[in-house]
């Protein structure tokens, strides 16, 4: 059914958008590297593929006049999800262009900002690309070479969004969300490869608990404030 396909694709786009944001946040910091630039490029391309696929699917669905009002309402809701994702993606792409330009990696006099982040982001990128491990095969001047591509891609995305607005008549404010306030607390979280029992994230919140394996709310036993070693 078109709806299920749509939802799956939107979920994928949503995931890639979130990962892309994490990668852009690392730009310009001490986490920045050639690998990060390559990760950004790959994630971006994937996001665009998903965007085009989603757009095609949703436009065909919404242009169909024979669908019922319920279906139409659902597609409009999916449309709002899609356009919000695209907005976020566009903003992040623009920012990555600016920061990328401000922080070229090869210039010795340009220092990266000492943000405290030093680790790599390959796990985040792998998540975005839905692979186990990232392969790095780009040239060593990717930090400057990619910027031109990025610029044209940003224009493409803007154009696509404009076209979308024109073709499909959806009033985003009329959409009613399915999720209630606090919905993020209710559903299950996937068990990712993360640590157990982190004690504090900043000195000010000593009693904070990140919630073990990521399950929160109902399952209480996991919130043991132990000095256990981190499993990374």
């Amino acid at each position: 059914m078109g709806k299920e396909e749509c939802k799956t694709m939107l979920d994928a786009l949503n995931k890639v958008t979130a990962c892309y944001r994490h990668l852009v946040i690392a730009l310009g910091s001490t986490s920045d590297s050639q690998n990060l630039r390559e990760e950004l490029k790959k994630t971006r391309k994937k996001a665009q593929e998903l965007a085009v696929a989603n757009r095609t699917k949703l436009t065909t669905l919404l242009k169909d006049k024979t669908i019922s009002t319920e279906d139409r309402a659902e597609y409009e809701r999916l449309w709002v999800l899609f356009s919000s994702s695209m907005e976020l993606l566009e903003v992040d792409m623009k920012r990555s262009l600016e920061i990328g330009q401000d922080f070229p990696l090869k210039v010795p006099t340009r220092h990266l900002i000492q943000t405290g982040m030093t680790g790599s982001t390959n796990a985040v990128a792998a998540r975005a690309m839905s692979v186990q491990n990232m392969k790095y095969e780009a040239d060593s001047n990717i930090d400057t070479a990619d910027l031109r591509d990025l610029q044209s891609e940003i224009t493409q995305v803007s154009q696509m969004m404009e076209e979308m607005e024109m073709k499909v008549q959806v009033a985003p404010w009329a959409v009613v969300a399915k999720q209630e306030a606090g919905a993020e607390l209710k559903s299950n979280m996937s068990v990712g490869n993360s640590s157990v029992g982190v004690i504090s994230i900043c000195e000010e919140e000593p009693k904070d608990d990140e919630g073990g394996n990521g399950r929160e709310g109902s399952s209480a036993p996991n919130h043991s404030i132990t000095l256990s070693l981190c499993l990374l």
Partner: protein
Amino acid sequence: MTFSRKILHNYYFFFFFFQAEKVLLEMQDPCTGVKSQPQRLVITIIPHAITGNKNRSLPQARSLGSMLVSLGYIYPLQDHKNLVIKPDASLYRFQTPYFWPTQQWPVEDTDYAIYLAKRNIRKKGMLELHEQEQYNHLHKWMNHKWDFIVMQAKEQYRAAKERKKPDRVVFDCQERAYWVVHRPPVRKPMIFTQQSIMRPRVKSSVSIGALVKYCSTYSGHDPFLSKCLPSNPWLTDDTTFWALNMPNVEIPTKMRVERWTFSFKELLSDPRGRDDFRLFLKKEFSGENLAFWEGCEDLKWGTAVAMKEKAEHIYKTFLARGAPRWINIDGKTMEITVKGLKHPHRYVLDAAQTHIYMLMKKDSYGRYLKSPVFKETLKKAICPDEHRFKNRRPSLSPIIIRQQEQEQRAKMAASAPVDITQVMSKLSKQGKEMGPRHSK
């Protein structure tokens, strides 16, 4: 921040953003920049923490540092809500470029909502008070995007877990610091805006209906919109209209009397109407109400010097027990008024005045309109005839007068030489004769 303050803030700081970024980059230089130390958090060690210690000596350095912190380029690791540089061993860290403040990247509510949702997940629903308020507010106003916000929050939360622990810690601090700058926790209560929201609102159909009613009632009485009798003095140079409608004229016009029936306010504001009403009240032996009301008006609009005296006089005449013209107001109003009179001011009698006004309006006014006094006045009221332009002497325009003078002068000059002074005096006499007729 209000919109205009935001613009000013951006404008003012645009220059500083540019310079601040340059300074920040220089601070990163391993040789000439700021030295950093690792931060220990139980078992985690996170590098690149700086202190404000060295700033103690140079006030400029300290103010620059404070500015960088308040803008969000550097954030404190302890006491994260207090955006200042402390000249002690407290730790700070540089903010990642993504979270730097610049004009081109406006701070979006969507991002804040996603952040709050993530925080909600992390804190398992126990948000701080201001965060909870903001969350509820955003949930209401961004409801159509809420599905997206929840989805994105969950995905961002999961993606963050893919990083190593020290980086996770740093990221959380960075994000939190960003929102402390752009959505500060303490907000002044906007009393003015809250009050204006609570103001009673009238449906436009009701207010427009009232306007229509007013216009239809008064259109006949408006000299600009309809004929006024006998004539509009500005058009016909005939002042009968003003003479007939003098404040204390003996016999009012019919139009004027009709206006008294529109509302009690009209009756009272017209001196002739008030007189008529006073006469009626005298016959009913309830003249003290109007007298009191007039006294209050006098107090309100009178000079400040005479205020105390007037207030006392009014009290003695109308309000005191056993007063000669005692007015009947309810106990509560009397209490308030007497209490207020201890320290009299212009508006001390407002409550009592309103009470009496409403009394007269609801009670006496209705009876007045049905009374013989009013009916008599109505019968006697005149309806002047329309002005007949026949009797009007049109005034000569000065241009024509001058032309005539010139013609006469030319005629004089054409004929035999005559004594000029005689001619001039004759002309000036003629001019004086014509004067009173057209100089009104």
